[in-house]
């Protein structure tokens, strides 16, 4: 069964059609990539799925239920969690405080007005678990705006994981990263997918990376789906080659 399904979803900004009749599916357990040139509508797609902007027309289903009318926080509660192209973190808090906010939200106690010793212990343990998983333990008490760019992006992923996502959406997870940082992020994505069974949908510009790890690729161009399928099929698709990969090589 598909975890995420979009049916004829469009988004217009004034007269500009950013996404035009998109249909798309992500299966449970899949590691799926979205590629396409700048302005093809990839981030708009993420914004629609995550509830950042509403769809103009069309239906979005997640985990068997329509989510068009749900607010962004409600979608997160269903297990639909995203990161952003430009890292969104809590800049003046430490690494562990950043993650703690998410853990508390997952524990359903964001609105609890008094501290509770037992719960505090559980939350601390879960934060530590997430930091270990993402390799951030050694930096846990550093303020995140002092961290290297790559580490900041890992913090954002750790925060997303705190909500135990059914579908983790990563918007250009390796943007602006050096080779070493990129390798680390790829390793993390692989680990999450294979060891923890997290379904992942990610936008990426690095073609070697995409064709290296994705099980399924959807190609966007001018707000439309140009092609979708397994990496070999997509790479062989003449439309994709012409429009995006720069013609047959």
């Amino acid at each position, binding site marked *: 069964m598909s975890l995420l399904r979009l049916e004829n979803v469009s988004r217009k900004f004034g007269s500009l059609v950013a996404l035009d009749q998109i249909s798309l599916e992500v299966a449970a357990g899949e590691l799926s990539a979205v590629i396409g040139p700048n302005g093809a509508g990839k981030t708009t797609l993420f914004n629609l799925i*995550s509830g*950042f902007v509403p769809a103009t027309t069309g239906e979005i289903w997640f985990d068997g239920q329509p989510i068009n009318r749900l*607010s*962004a*926080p*409600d979608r*997160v*509660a269903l297990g639909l*969690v*995203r990161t*952003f192209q430009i890292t*969104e*973190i*809590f*800049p*003046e*808090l430490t690494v562990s*405080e950043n993650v*703690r*906010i*998410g853990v*508390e*939200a*997952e*524990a359903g*106690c*964001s*609105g*609890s*007005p*008094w*501290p509770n010793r037992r719960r505090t212990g559980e939350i601390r343990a879960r934060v530590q678990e997430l930091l270990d998983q993402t390799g951030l333990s050694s930096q846990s008490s550093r303020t995140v705006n002092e961290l290297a760019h790559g580490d900041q992006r890992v913090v*954002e992923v750790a*925060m*997303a994981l*705190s*909500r135990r996502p059914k579908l983790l959406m990563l918007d250009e997870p390796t943007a602006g990263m050096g080779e070493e940082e990129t390798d680390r992020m790829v390793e993390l994505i692989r680990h999450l997918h294979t060891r923890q069974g997290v379904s992942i949908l990610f936008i990426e510009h690095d073609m070697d990376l995409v064709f290296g790890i994705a099980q399924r690729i959807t190609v966007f161009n001018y707000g439309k789906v140009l092609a979708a399928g397994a990496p070999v099929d997509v790479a062989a698709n003449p439309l994709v080659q012409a429009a995006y990969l720069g013609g047959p090589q």
Partner: protein
Amino acid sequence: MKGRARTIVATLVIWALLLTVPAWLPEIGGYTALASRILIYALCAMALNILLGYTGMMSFGQAAYFGLGGYGAGLALIHLTHSTWLAVVAGTLLGGLAALLLGALVMRSRGIYFAMITVAIGQILYFAAERWDSITGGQDGLTGFSRQPLRFGHLTVPLSDVPFYYFVLFWFAIGVAVLAILLSSPLGHTFVAIRENRRRAAFLGINVSRYVWASFAVAGLVAGLSGSLNALLNNFVSPADLYWVQSGNFVIIAVLGGMRSFWGPLVGAIIFIGFQNYVSSVLPNNWETVIGILFIVIVLFFPSGILGIARRRARIV
């Protein structure tokens, strides 16, 4: 742990100083009622700081709940009760209830819009209080009540300056404890998350407006408490307690002491009220200019407040 030890020592020193005010303040030229006023303004600014410094919402209408607390306490003493305790409770609840209801109107706005709507609400209440002569005493303010002696069994304590200071300190301690517990709770963490990055908070599943509302209600509740005490301090409530200039005073007290520190507004209130008191006796005609210059100097040279500077220096050393 070093930082924690320092915090504990600082907190103990603050409470020791506050408990002994009537003993040492007159020695340095102050008077006890002045200390009561400082505590009252500090409490209101600390409450505002939950919104301003911790949730990152620029409220410019804190005086509304301060003033309502005052009217609530005064009217309770006139019409309902002879208990000073109950008057405080009534004023606090009025401020809190008003903030709870009006918070629903403001919780979705941000930035300048938030500041302007909070100002607008304060102004509506100000004009209402100023015009509704039969209830509020109109422009002349609310009079005809005075703080009643406290009864403990057979013991009756008249609330002259010094006992009243301890009465204020008692409520100040409760208000401060509520705020401190709140800030160390998950809700307090949520407030800070909203200040740091609203978008990230929302996409971690946090319903931002709901918690802005909560922050607003708490700030209003404690402002109501502070306003009640202010009414009892003066045995008088003025519509000017609701006016936007008064809201500005609370903001400057919070900024002056340091918006990012819990005790900052207390330091800000000591300086602001002390300074105002001194200048208005030395320069009765031009104290506004001096206060204005103080505002400008703080903004230009001490933007992170007195405690902000102290903390930065401590970090370097």
